[in-house]
């Protein structure tokens, strides 16, 4: 898939006005995972913005060392959520990465490979399906137990990380055009956004989402023609490609239906399509209208009248997905839904809203920091021993699988939709 727009565009450099908005007050420092691990200004939001500004003003070259500080950023946007000055950190960092991609000095080969993989694997459903198929098979197979018992992968760093992250029961894929559970006499119809990895590895979550919606008389349709949301590409600085994907989704999902998204990263990206395509005369207005129709699963479900009751006896640790809590500012809705479930005891863990280190492809690109953040989660799980860890994003779910194992626990890791689905089913059986 070739991009039809020149790349990078001048508009893809961070805007001086965005950068100058930071008054270096430092209030964001301790919300930043990488600052709280390192204590270094260079690994803080304030420092990263200052570096971008120094590059912008010509005080500093964009050296590999400078880039390394940006690379270590998780793009979790915790800083943005607490910044009183309203610094658009997410936008700044996407543009910084676009700038880096245009002038690659460090790890040229790795960057190219990454960009190639994001464009040609992640964004191409059939290629992705073929690549993921063995992993899907492996995840549920007896081989996995063997590999784990023999610790076969111990010395294979990244591979071992990926192995640990695989969901336990991936479930059959749900792809655009597939049929989902339908309610009897639907009161409303919504589009279910299927996504890339989500659709291949988390079909179970999609089905659970459709069932929960159906029980509230909403029909979810996996509208055909939709593609990957482009979040991973935008975070990697490939804004041109992200724009292409956005335009495809806008074309495919034209109409008035609400678009329900159960992956926090995709939802955040799609709510920002208006911003992404603001300079595209043909799409700017359509993109803004599209963005206004996007809802996170929890955000949508809390608005549905007559939700059936749920029942699940479990101590549940809800962990905020960064792009839900920080980018979409949705914290209360998932917790409210969990509180409605009878028998469900919320377990508050420290740092529930701090990044788990999954961060898209981050766990593969920066395994050290990712492991440190995962270890912090694991330590909390060990301390509080929840029965279930719940979140709302596929990448986080995978990281929590690994964290729970690291904590030596048997806790289940579930998407909020899966938990609600199971709880509603339990309640009916009673």
């Amino acid at each position, binding site marked *: 898939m070739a991009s039809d727009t020149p790349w990078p565009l001048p508009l893809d450099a961070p805007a001086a*006005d965005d950068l*100058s*908005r*930071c*008054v*270096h*007050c*430092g*209030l*964001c*420092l*301790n*919300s930043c995972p990488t600052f709280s691990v390192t*204590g*270094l*200004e*260079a690994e803080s939001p*304030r*420092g990263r913005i*200052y*570096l971008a500004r*120094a590059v912008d003003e010509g*005080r*500093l070259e964009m*050296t590999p*060392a*400078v880039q390394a*500080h940006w690379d270590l950023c998780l793009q979790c946007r915790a800083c943005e959520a*607490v*910044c*009183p*000055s*309203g*610094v658009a950190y997410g936008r700044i960092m996407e543009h910084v990465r676009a700038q880096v991609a245009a002038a690659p000095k460090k790890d040229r080969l790795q960057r190219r490979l990454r960009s190639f993989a994001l464009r040609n694997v992640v964004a191409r459903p059939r290629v992705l399906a073929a690549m993921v198929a063995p992993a899907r098979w492996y995840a549920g197979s007896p081989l996995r137990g063997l590999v784990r018992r023999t610790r076969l992968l111990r010395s294979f760093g990244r591979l071992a990380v990926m192995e640990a992250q695989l969901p336990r029961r991936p479930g059959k894929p749900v792809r655009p055009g597939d049929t989902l559970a339908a309610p009897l006499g639907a009161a409303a119809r919504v589009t279910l956004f299927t996504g890339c990895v989500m659709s291949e590895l988390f079909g179970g979550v999609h089905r659970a989402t459709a069932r929960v919606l159906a029980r509230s008389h909403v029909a979810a349709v996996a509208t055909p023609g939709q593609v990957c949301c482009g979040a991973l590409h935008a975070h990697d600085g490939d804004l041109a490609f992200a724009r292409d994907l956005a335009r495809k989704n806008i074309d495919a999902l034209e109409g008035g239906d609400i678009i329900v998204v159960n992956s926090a990263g995709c939802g955040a990206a799609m709510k920002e399509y208006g911003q992404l395509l603001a300079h595209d005369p043909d799409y700017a207005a359509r993109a803004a209208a599209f963005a206004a129709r996007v809802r996170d699963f929890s955000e949508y479900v809390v608005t549905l009248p007559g939700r059936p009751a749920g029942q699940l006896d479990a101590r549940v640790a809800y962990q905020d997905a960064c792009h839900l809590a920080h980018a979409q500012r949705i914290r209360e809705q998932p917790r409210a839904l969990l509180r409605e479930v009878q028998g469900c005891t919320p377990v508050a863990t420290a740092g529930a809203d701090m990044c788990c280190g999954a961060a898209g492809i981050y766990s593969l690109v920066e395994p050290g920091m990712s492991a440190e953040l995962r270890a912090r989660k694991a330590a909390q799980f060990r301390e509080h021993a929840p029965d279930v860890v719940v979140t709302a994003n596929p990448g986080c779910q995978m990281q929590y699988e690994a964290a729970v194992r690291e904590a030596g626990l048997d806790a289940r890791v579930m998407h909020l939709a899966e938990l609600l689905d199971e709880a509603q089913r339990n309640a009916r059986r009673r």
Partner: protein
Amino acid sequence: MTTRRELLARLRAAVGDRNVAWRPEDLLLYEYDGTIEKKLPYAVAFPDGADETAAVVRACNELGVPVTPRGAGTGLSGGAVPARRGVVIATTRMRRILEIDPVNRLAVVEPGLPNIQLSEAAAVHGLFYAPDPSSQKACTIGGNVAENAGGPHCLSLGVTTNHVLGIEVVTAAGEITWLGGRVPDAHGYDLRGAFIGSEGTLGIVTKVVVRLVPVPASVVTLLAVFDTVEQASETVSAIISAGLIPAAMEMMDRTTLQAAEAGLQCGYPPDAGAVLLVELDGLAEMVDSQAASVRGECLERGATDVRTARDAAERELLWKGRKGAIGSLGRIAPNYYILDGVVPRSRLVDVMATVADVSARYDLPIANVFHAGDGNLHPCVMFDEREPGATERVLSAGAEIMRACVEAGGSLSGEHGIGFEKQKFMPWLYNEADLENMARLRPVFGNEGAFNPCKLLPGGTGCGEMAHQEAALRAAGPDAYV
């Protein structure tokens, strides 16, 4: 002459290779704090513990390189900016809570601990650390000690010095010593008291013993809405005269309210002329009757509305706005210059008129946030440093306001410290003999001029380079001290 290589080698020997920053892009990030002053250090050292800190200080002394301590860099008077370059010693590797003793209600912490993390950790014992600067999510206990920081809740509970029992310090000479201890009222000279508020000019704090206080049984938070700052100011005086001592009493003007509301959606009325945020705490019956009196005083002096936070979440929201208010000014202009004057409460209204006048004459918007109960004002002058000459204009506007505070019988700083930017105003308050006496304390701790130079007291060699200051003083008029 010391070479860079030599300096780095000595620092690495003191703290280990990984704990010295020296690359240009790393140094750039230690040229600033929360103010507009900037100066690049030669190197940054990150010691862990008193021994390593002392080793760094001694190495710098031997090489004749200036030293500047740094906490989180949220300071608002340029205190952590290395005015004469040299080495910045950052405390970020020392951020552990060493002990919480609920029986004796104290804690022992390291200096780099962010203020709020202490209260969070003490909460399980029903205790908290009282001084709560608005920057408490970020600023460090060590930085608080150095600045004798205050906060909204210091109105009834007192500022940092009232809550610090003892400190372990590495003196400017590089010696490790304890000032004060675990029990209050130790005998002998109160060197602990002298050190607190010394703005990192006498040494570096490496451990702090602080007092913890019980979380109040009952809290009521009121938001009173006024049409004008004058009405709100008069109400403040009336509340105090009525013998009420709120836990906190904060004022914000219209510009601030609008920025805070835009940035933080905290439920402030954006078209009010001013609001007072008043908090009362203590036993339930007492708090309720005091709240009723405060409400009465507000309504009597023209409040158009007095709201009460219904629960903890609403209270937190009201405070979130206040605590983020200064930061949210970044929405109005790319830079702000925040002043920190203190005036007798009775003169609040006159000084505010001067502030408004300065704002009009210099054509610079000024937002106002106050710890109103203490007469501590924070006019924030807004500008864009990229405009040629803007910074100089702002500094001279600031100088005029500071002058007005002093002339009204007030002082130069309520809590942000004198630091770099206001040292030259000190002669407005003190005569030469006073200043000399204060300066004599420095050699006692081993500071011969290179330990956090150009801060707190005027003068010193090599401190005149800050062009901003010079320009500001020239513009402030003929009787300004240069």
